[in-house]
């Protein structure tokens, strides 16, 4: 991608460049392209000033009011449903429920706590344990050829051999994205070997679709479904009944209790980490700090607790921690010091 044309790129050229515009407005999903643009100033120093100016003009423009009208979201859908029902004598769709197409793909986010489940499994001879270090991601193929992307500082455990007589089972501590193969589309007639179960911090997630995300951190389990269908079981220690989740559903669970259920605004963003190294949407500084600690092993101190609540509106898609820190210091009124390689001190003011 080293191209002579960039050496003399003018402001106009940047604003005309579809790839640049896509990146600067946070829509770039391709990690390679995102890396190219975030490294642009160092790769093409002669065009760096124009690049910086183009970036700041667009970022400036983007700091505008977002009007989502969320309060009326449910109400408008009710009106749409009522109008459609009034227009139609029959309601074929409501009867048919999930089609095979939607069932064929499920994306789920699960954030759970504690590694004890995983460690319980240690030492059993036939088990495969795969762990990633800070800043590392791995793609793993399971015995049934399902594919798992494992995020930084995460562990996945499963039996080395899977037979067709028992359910496929996986234990997750940390975060993982699953693409599950060979599910029976007829959910009323699933044989044991066709079941796919993910265990994490007391939760059992039964996959009724094919792709989903699991994350396990800080004593809390978060499950969010993007597409498809899953069933969440809460073990026998408590009286929550198993819950079937549909696209957009999101729950938080800790200490045998469901803490929160809601709809996610943009469920799609849940799996974006598999494509972009560092990605956030409307993130608070606190969320960013947690990711730096969990996924990259940083120790982060803040001058005042209140600055953790500062929020960066919009999407951040960056290639590395250095770039992320630049985004933080340019958008928020904070100063970042780095006393050692893995230590950060964030204080308010410039």
């Amino acid at each position, binding site marked *: 991608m080293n191209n002579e044309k960039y050496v003399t790129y003018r402001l106009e050229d940047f604003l005309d460049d579809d790839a640049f515009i896509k990146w600067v407005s946070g829509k770039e999903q391709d990690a390679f392209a995102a890396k190219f643009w975030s490294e642009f100033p160092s790769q093409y120093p002669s065009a760096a000033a124009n690049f910086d100016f183009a970036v700041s003009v667009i970022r400036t423009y983007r700091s505008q009011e977002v009007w989502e*009208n969320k309060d009326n979201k449910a109400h408008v859908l009710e009106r749409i449903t009522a109008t459609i029902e009034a227009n139609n004598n029959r309601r074929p769709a409501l009867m048919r429920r999930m089609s095979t197409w939607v069932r064929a793909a499920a994306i789920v986010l699960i954030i759970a706590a504690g590694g004890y489940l995983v460690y319980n499994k240690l030492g059993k001879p036939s088990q495969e344990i795969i762990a990633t270090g800070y800043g590392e991601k791995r793609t793993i193929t399971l015995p049934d050829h399902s594919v798992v992307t494992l995020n930084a500082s995460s562990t996945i455990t499963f039996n080395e051999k899977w037979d067709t007589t028992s359910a496929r089972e996986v234990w997750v501590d940390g975060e993982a994205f699953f693409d599950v193969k060979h599910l029976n589309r007829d959910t009323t007639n699933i044989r044991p070997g066709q079941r796919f179960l993910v265990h994490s911090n007391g939760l059992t997630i039964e996959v009724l679709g094919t792709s989903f995300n699991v994350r396990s951190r800080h004593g809390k389990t978060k499950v969010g479904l993007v597409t498809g269908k899953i069933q969440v079981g809460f073990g026998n220690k408590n009286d929550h009944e198993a819950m079937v989740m549909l696209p957009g559903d999101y729950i938080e669970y800790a200490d045998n209790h469901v803490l929160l259920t809601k709809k996610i605004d943009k469920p799609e963003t849940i799996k974006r980490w598999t494509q972009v190294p560092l990605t956030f949407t409307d993130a608070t500084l606190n969320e960013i700090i947690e990711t730096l600690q969990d996924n990259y092993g940083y120790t982060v101190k803040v001058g005042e607790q209140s600055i953790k609540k500062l929020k960066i509106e919009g999407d951040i898609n960056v290639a590395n921690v250095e770039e992320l820190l630049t985004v933080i210091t340019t958008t928020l009124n904070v100063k970042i010091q780095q006393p050692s390689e893995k230590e950060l001190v964030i204080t308010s003011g410039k």
Partner: protein
Amino acid sequence: MQSESHVLWWNAFKQGDWDAFTALYGEFYELLNNYGRKFTQDADLIQDVVHDLFVRLWTTRTRLGNPASVKNYLYKALRSTLFRKIQSLSKFVELDNASGQGGFAVNFIPDASFRQEEQELRNQVIALVNTLPARQQEIIFLRFYEGMSYEEIAVIMDINMSSTYKLLYKALDNLQKVSDKRFLTFLTILFFLSRNFSKKIMIPEG
């Protein structure tokens, strides 16, 4: 840019899958409201348009094609539904150029967290954008906020991407070179003049 799940939902919805239909609604409701808001401050009108749009999607689902981008398809549909609605509600028919009717404006957030030097640039960019005619502002929005290519913008707005945007680039380029206030005033005048090209002619209905 087309998301995998958007395609899945779209295909399922066309086959009559209600869950997929509501998933599409869940995914795009906020974006459509935000886009609609730029044309009008009337929240009820925007809700009516979103309602009409989704009702029509459902009732015509078997005849729908496979858009290259579901989001862009919905943006285009929202735009035309909104314009039709504004036109039918209006006592007067607005005759603009063929590209459409209605204003276009974004509200900038007063933000103290910007650095001093950025604050100055910010004021200039806002001043500049606010002088642009509606359709040019819409191009800027789709380009810099939604990150769309010229081709995508041309499809949504149903226009031929001419030299419209070049004018803005020239202005921004000058903004970079010149911090001279007098020059900025000159630019403001330039854009004020360009606004007159899309002069509105009002004629009574009937």
